[in-house]
């Protein structure tokens, strides 16, 4: 029987959760014994090869492209997991949610103290993803099966959670790994 497949993506996040995943160090060898990596920045595979069993999502949705990637994951993944505070709650990017979108863009492209932009235009190339009215946590856009909080969730948390899921065992995370204050 072929190994289950796992896919990962970073939406409006900082790649810190992916770094944390790499931080499992040599245990990555154990992990690849258990799974094959499908679409993921870790192997730089851009497209799904087919259905996968587990999807890990870092970051919330800030642009229409984020939404499309997330929906693509939802269609391909049997189990979809929100990883980290941005995916589960919006995180740092969601700090813009209290500021109207036009003001955000003007600050970034026109009025910011270090901005040099003689035309004063806000970028409007059709290739540039459009920002959403606010940053959404993933579960407000698609159904999410599990949540792994933390900024980032530690390597141990990620490893133990994934292994438990693959082996169909209950997660037994020690208190230190899920205590955040």
């Amino acid at each position: 029987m072929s190994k289950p497949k796992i896919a990962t993506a970073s939406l409006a996040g900082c790649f810190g959760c992916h770094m944390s995943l790499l931080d499992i160090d040599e245990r990555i060898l154990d992990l690849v014994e258990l799974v094959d990596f499908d679409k993921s920045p870790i192997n730089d595979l851009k497209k799904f090869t087919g259905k996968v069993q587990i999807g890990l999502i870092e970051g919330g949705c800030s642009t229409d492209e984020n939404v499309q990637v997330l929906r693509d994951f939802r269609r391909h993944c049997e189990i979809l997991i929100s990883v980290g505070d941005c995916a589960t709650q919006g995180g740092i990017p969601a700090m813009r949610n209290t500021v109207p979108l036009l003001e955000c863009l003007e600050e970034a492209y026109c009025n910011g103290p270090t901005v040099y932009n003689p035309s004063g235009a806000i970028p409007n190339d059709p290739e540039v993803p459009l920002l959403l009215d606010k940053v959404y946590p993933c579960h407000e856009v698609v159904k999410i099966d599990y949540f792994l909080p933390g900024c980032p969730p530690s390597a141990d948390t990620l490893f133990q959670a994934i292994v438990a899921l693959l082996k169909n065992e209950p997660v037994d995370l020690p208190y230190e790994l899920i205590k955040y204050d």
Partner: protein
Amino acid sequence: MNLAERSFITKLCQSCGKDPHRLMDIIIGVQGAYARVSGDAMNLIAAELGLPRVDVESAVSFYQFLSKEQKGHVRIRLCDDIIDRMYGFDRILKAFSEELGIGLNQTTPDGKFTFETTACIGMCDQAPAALMNNVVVTNLNSDSVHDLVESLRKNLNPEQLVKKTGNGNNSHPLVRAMVQNNIRRRGPVIFQDFTPGEALRKGLAMSPMEVIRSVKTARLRGRGGAGFPTGMKWEFTRAAAGDRKFIMCNADEGEPGTFKDRVILTEKPNLIFEGMTLAGYAIGAGEGILYLRGEYTYLLDFLNETLKERRASGLLGKSILGKDGFDFDIRIQLGAGAYICGEETALISSCEGLRGDPKNRPPFPAQKGYLGYPTVVNNVETFCCVSRIIEHGAGWFAEHGTKGSSGTKLLSVSGDCRMPGVYEVPFGISIHELLEMVGADDTYAVQIGGPSGQLIGRADFQRTICFDDLATGGAVMIFDEDRDVLEIVQAFMDFFVHESCGYCTPCRVGNVLLKKKLEEIRAGKGEPSDLEYLKSLGETIKATSRCGLGQTSPNPILTSMAHFPDAYLKLLHEDKQGYQPTFDLDEAVATAARIAGHGRVHHED
């Protein structure tokens, strides 16, 4: 603040003995005279009463009828409840808005008019209705709005709008309201002739304990809806230690669809005051307070006059009816538009000059109520029953109704029926019998007990109105087949969200979540799993809220889900792809697309 206002406020504070517990009277007085309670006014009131300014501001900000901002000379408050919505609320709102040239919650630039909506004002049998300052205007339609506003523009006095006064005491010179009583059925207890003093004379011939025993033998239970045995409440209060004791009458009839107390207050005030006096005698209280909802301010002068007459006849005051040592008097405390003040501990807070926040229980008012003294709080109708029990005897009273629910019940009937109004019926009447009595032929759903009660369908129409089956404070709203059940539920949730006092989280936040989910379902964005969400959230709010408001506010959703599951199911669908139906990508990028000048973007997955 000019000198005149300063001296008005100072005098007002003096007339209340500079008693901080009379804060409500003072701020209502200032609002009435100046259409606002300004920051300067608050400072002055605080100084006069020896209160911190924040206590004054806190109270002013709590009550809907009070405001820090300047309101217009005429404040038009259109009644917003489901019955008014069924009878043209939207059209009338639009008509007012066009006539006045302002939107909701705005004041005309000339300062003449403020336009607002308000929760049920107790006129569902003559809806749509509105308050113009304290004047009630009933049976509004979009044609009459034009004439009303025209006439008010000429002369900013809403009282001139009352061309034809209503029946009974609505035509009394001190009332002069266009309100109709619509008493459709007179039973033996409330709506029979009553000679003031008749019951009191018999009561004072008994010992206080005998009076309580009579009330217990009559098996009288509270008419506000909860049905607590009245005699037991009195016994507790009598037994409680306290130098002073108080009797309070809850006339804060705020449950949407309820208006029977309004009719009792209009037609049988002596029956109420006599019941309160008997209660004072029974538990050893010297003072009574009737808490009158702000919406019924038009009855205030009439009720005060009735109290005056009772004093003159020796039925109130010192040594009542010559009984040495029995002194009792009653004052009326006006409310200012807060549903929560119908909750007995919130009502006590309001009488104490505080925000109408409920208090923790225990201690119950029977131990520590008004100002910390043992207090009996009963409904208007309950006190009327007491008068009759003492007048005609406990046995006579207990003959009516059922074993567990003796006597009669006043029902306020409104909605889809030919004869809306007040019905005095014996407990134990079935919904079928009631519907026939009121001329409702094609009934699909009945809301019993107002929004905090339950919405039932045809399968339950053989059930009976009594404390052991369908308990009610008196509201019965009737809906035909063509009414949208979820629209009804939505109106009730809007109401609860608005009226939550905000003290405890389950009620403040939970009701908003319920309302939001319901709106999503109505917009076609609901999923089957939402039913479980509504149920578990609703149960949580009920179990963890601090007072009766949150303990009943999920009822519209929970009971309609139980009795009208199809109303929900037909709107729910599962998204096969696992997307959240509540997220709309086009809507979410619309602003960015506009800023970028892209026009509308279509997203295909």
